[in-house]
C-alpha cells in the first residue's frame, strides 16, 4: 500500500471512529430552573421535566440531603400535594400527538412518602386525553384531572372532560375493565350548556338525600354517606356523585358512574351569564347544603340536596334558594349562631355582612367597621374547644387600604349585631392571612403589602387579641412551618430570619445563595428533627440547608442538585 493511500485510509478510519458513540440525552437537556418545586412533609420535590422524573430531597444527618429519583410521564403539566404533605400528584400530558409506539400516553403519577422514613414509592395511572389541571381531595381518596381555563395541549380537545382517579386503588386500564370491574381512572364529559369547568370542590362526607320527609322515609328513601365533586363552570354548576363515580354504566354507551346534576344559572332566554364563585359546603353531614354566589348579580344561592322524584338517575336533587344581599358579595361561609345555621355573606361595597337563614331566606344585616372582603372561621382557635357557635376572622386583602382585621362572634350576631364585632387595628394593608398549625393554631400571620423601603408582617393572637408586628428591611416572603412552632421570613437575596412563635424574636440568618423559596421539612434522622431547605433556583438547583430547630451556624450548602448521574 502506498504512503498516501495508507494515510488516507488511517484518516478515514479515525474520522469514522470519532463520529461514532454518544452520551445519554440526559446530559444534553438543560435544567429548567423555573420548574416547580414542592414542599412535602419530609422532602422537597423538584420536577425535572426534561429527564421525566421527580427528584425528592430528604433531610439527612449534618444537614446533608439525600436524593430519591422517581420517574414521571413525559411533558409535565401540573402537580399538587396532599394536605398532609405525604403525597405528590404529578400530571403529565404525554407525547402529543402519539406517533410511535414509544410515545407515552398522558398520565398521573402518585408519589407516596412513607410517614416515618419518607422513602417514596410511586403509582402510575394512564389517561386517554391530556389534561392540564388537578384537583385533590382533601381526604386523600380522589384526584380529578380537568382542562379548566388552561390552553389546550392537543389540537382538538374537549374542555368538559374530567378524569376521576381513586388513588386508594391501583391503575385499571379501560381494556382490562368490565361493567363489574370498572377502570381506574374513569373519564366522563360533563354536560355543558356552553360552559367549561373552572373550579372543582370536594365535599365532605354528606348523608344524602337530606331532609327526608316521613312520607319519603315510609316509601323507602334512605340517606347514605356520599362524597360529591362540585364543578363550577363559567356559567353553571355541576354535581358529580363521587361515591358512585365507578358504578357500572346505565347503558353500554354511557360512562361509568351516575349522571351528574347540572344547576343552570341562566334561563336560556337571555344573554346575561352568571359565573358561580365562592362555593362552600355546609360541614354538617345531615344538612346537605351548598351555597355560592356569582360574579354577575347580588344574590346568594343556596342548594339543599333533597330526595329526587322517582325515576331520577340520582337519589338527590338540589332545591334552590336565591337570597338578595343588596350588592355583590365577596365571600360567604356557613356559620352557626345561637339562632341556628346561617349563611354569612360579606358585602364590602356596603361595609356590611348579611346573615341569611337558609330555609326561609330571612336576612340580618350586620354593620362592619370597614369594607372587609374575606372571611375564615377561627372558632376552634379562639375558643380552644368545640363550640356550638362560630367566630369568624374578617379582613380585606389586596385593597391597598389599611382596614385591620375584625373578629366576628356569631353567637348573638342575629339579635345583637352591634355587639358581635371586635376590631384589631393593623397599620398596613393586608395582603394575605396565613394559618398556623397546631399547637399554635390560635395564631394567624398577616402578610402586609410592601411599603416604601420597608415592610412588616403581624403575628395575630386570636386568644389574646394581640397583633405583634415584625419589621423587615425589604418585602418579605413568609413560610409557616407545618409543625406550627415557627415561621420563616426571607427575601430573594440571601436574607433569612427564623421567628419562633414562643418568643417572636427573629433570629437573623444568611443563606449561602439567593433564595427562591424555603421549605421546613421533617428530618427523619432525629426524633422531631427538622430541616430548613432554602432553594436556590440557579444552575441545576442548589440549596442551603439549616437545622430548623437550632439554625445558627448549622448551614450547609448543597449545589448542583440535579446534576447527579442519571
Amino acid at each position, binding site marked *: 500500500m502506498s504512503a498516501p493511500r495508507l494515510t488516507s485510509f488511517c484518516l478515514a478510519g479515525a474520522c469514522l471512529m470519532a463520529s461514532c458513540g454518544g*452520551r445519554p440525552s440526559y446530559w444534553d*437537556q438543560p435544567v429548567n430552573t423555573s420548574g416547580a418545586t414542592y414542599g412535602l412533609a419530609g422532602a422537597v420535590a423538584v420536577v425535572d421535566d426534561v429527564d421525566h422524573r421527580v427528584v425528592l430531597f430528604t433531610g439527612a444527618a449534618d444537614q446533608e440531603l439525600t436524593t430519591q429519583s422517581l420517574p414521571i410521564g413525559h411533558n409535565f403539566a401540573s402537580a399538587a400535594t396532599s394536605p398532609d404533605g405525604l403525597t405528590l400528584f404529578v400530571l403529565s400530558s404525554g407525547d402529543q400527538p402519539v406517533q410511535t409506539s414509544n410515545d407515552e400516553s398522558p398520565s398521573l403519577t402518585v408519589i407516596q412518602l412513607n410517614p416515618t422514613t419518607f422513602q417514596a414509592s410511586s403509582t402510575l395511572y394512564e389517561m386517554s386525553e391530556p389534561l392540564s389541571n388537578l384537583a385533590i381531595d382533601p381526604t386523600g381518596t380522589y384526584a380529578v384531572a380537568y382542562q379548566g381555563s388552561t390552553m389546550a395541549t392537543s389540537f382538538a380537545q374537549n374542555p368538559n372532560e374530567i378524569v376521576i382517579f381513586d388513588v386508594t386503588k391501583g391503575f385499571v386500564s379501560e381494556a382490562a375493565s368490565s361493567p363489574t370491574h370498572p377502570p381506574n381512572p374513569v373519564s366522563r364529559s360533563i354536560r355543558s350548556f356552553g360552559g367549561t369547568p373552572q373550579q372543582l370542590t370536594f365535599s365532605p362526607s354528606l348523608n344524602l338525600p337530606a331532609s327526608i320527609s316521613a312520607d319519603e322515609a315510609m316509601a323507602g328513601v334512605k340517606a347514605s354517606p356520599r362524597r360529591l365533586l362540585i364543578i363550577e363552570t363559567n356559567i353553571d354548576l355541576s354535581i358529580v356523585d363521587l361515591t358512585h363515580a365507578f358504578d357500572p354504566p346505565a347503558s353500554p354507551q354511557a360512562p361509568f358512574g351516575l349522571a351528574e346534576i347540572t344547576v343552570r344559572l341562566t334561563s336560556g332566554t337571555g344573554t346575561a351569564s352568571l359565573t358561580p364563585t365562592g362555593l362552600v359546603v355546609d360541614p354538617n353531614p345531615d344538612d346537605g347544603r351548598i351555597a355560592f354566589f356569582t360574579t354577575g348579580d347580588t344574590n346568594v344561592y343556596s342548594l339543599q340536596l333533597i330526595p329526587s322524584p322517582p325515576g331520577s338517575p340520582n337519589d338527590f336533587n338540589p332545591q334552590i334558594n336565591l337570597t338578595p344581599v343588596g350588592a355583590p358579595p365577596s365571600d360567604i361561609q356557613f356559620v352557626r349562631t345561637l339562632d341556628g345555621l346561617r349563611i354569612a355573606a360579606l358585602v364590602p361595597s356596603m361595609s356590611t355582612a348579611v346573615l341569611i337563614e337558609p330555609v326561609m331566606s330571612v336576612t340580618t344585616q350586620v354593620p362592619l367597621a370597614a369594607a372587609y372582603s374575606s372571611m375564615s372561621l377561627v372558632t376552634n382557635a379562639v375558643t380552644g374547644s368545640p363550640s356550638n357557635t362560630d367566630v369568624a376572622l374578617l379582613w380585606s386583602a389586596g385593597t391597598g387600604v389599611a382596614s385591620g382585621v375584625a373578629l366576628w362572634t356569631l353567637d348573638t350576631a342575629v339579635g345583637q349585631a352591634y355587639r358581635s364585632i371586635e376590631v384589631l387595628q393593623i397599620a398596613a394593608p393586608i395582603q394575605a392571612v396565613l394559618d398556623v398549625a397546631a399547637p399554635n393554631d390560635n395564631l394567624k400571620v398577616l402578610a402586609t403589602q410592601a411599603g416604601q423601603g420597608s415592610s412588616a408582617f403581624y403575628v395575630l393572637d386570636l386568644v389574646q387579641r394581640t397583633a405583634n408586628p415584625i419589621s423587615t428591611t425589604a418585602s418579605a416572603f413568609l413560610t409557616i412551618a407545618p409543625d406550627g412552632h415557627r415561621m420563616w421570613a426571607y427575601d430573594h437575596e440571601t436574607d433569612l430570619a427564623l421567628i419562633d412563635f414562643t418568643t417572636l424574636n427573629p433570629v437573623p440568618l444568611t443563606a449561602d445563595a439567593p433564595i427562591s423559596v424555603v421549605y421546613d421539612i421533617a428530618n427523619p434522622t432525629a426524633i422531631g428533627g427538622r430541616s430548613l431547605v432554602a432553594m436556590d433556583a440557579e444552575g*441545576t438547583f*442548589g440549596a442551603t440547608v439549616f437545622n430548623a430547630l437550632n439554625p445558627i451556624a448549622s448551614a450547609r450548602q448543597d449545589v448542583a442538585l440535579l*446534576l447527579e*448521574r442519571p
Partner: protein
Amino acid sequence: MKLLTILIAIVPATFTTGAGAQLALPTQPDTVHSEPAAPPSNVDRREGSWRIEAGYRGSFVPSSGYGPFSTNEYFPEFSLAASRTLFARGPFSFAPGLAWDFGSTGATARGDPSSFSMQRVTVSLEGRVHLGPWGYAYLRAAPGAAMQKAQIDDASSPDPLAKSQWLFATDLSAGYAWLLWPRWERSVLEPRLWLQGEGGYGWVAGDRLALAPALPSGSTDRTSGVDLGTLAMQGAFFRLAAAVSF
C-alpha cells in the same frame, strides 16, 4: 477536520524536531549495534538508536462517567514520545522510552459548561520486528500514571465544581512504522523520517467523580458537592504519528 488540523500542525513540528536531532548527530554515540563485529557497510542503521515521535491519539471512552464532558464519547490527545533502542538481535529489537499524552475536551452537562483534561506519562516498552526498507511492526506496553482534571461550572455553586486526581494507567498496543525517507541507505546513520499508526487499548483506573467547589483555604463554609459516578478512561484508541530516528 479537527484531526486533520492537528496532524497538519504536528508534521512541521516533527520536522523541526528532526532538524534539531540532525544537528546533534555528531555527539550521539553509536552505542547500539546489533552486530558489532560485522563490517560497517553491513550494518542496517535504518532503525537508528534514538527516536522521537509526535502525533495524534484518539480514544473511545464508553464510560458513563465521561458523559458530562463529551458529546461523542471520544477523547483526542496530543502524543509525544522518545525511545532508544537498547537491544537488537536479527530483525528484532527492544526500545524502551517515555511518552506523554495530553488532551482536553469540553461539553455542556445539563446546561452547565464542563471540561475535562488528562495528562498521561508512561514508560513505553516496545518490541519491534524490522522489515528492512519497509519499516517495522511493533508491540508496545506502556504503564504509567494519568492526571485527570474534571470541572463543571454550575451557577448554584460558589466556585467551579472540580476534581483532580493522579491514577494508574497503562496502554497495550500494536502498530506499524513506515519508513518514509531516506529508505535505501541502510548503512548510513542519518536522520530518517517515519510515519506510523497503531491501535490498542488504553486503561486508566476508575475514579469516583465527586466534584466539589474549591473553596478558599480557611473557609468555614460547609458545601456538599455532586457525585457524577465513576469515570473510567478505558477503551480502544488509535495513534497516528510522525517520527524521526537518528
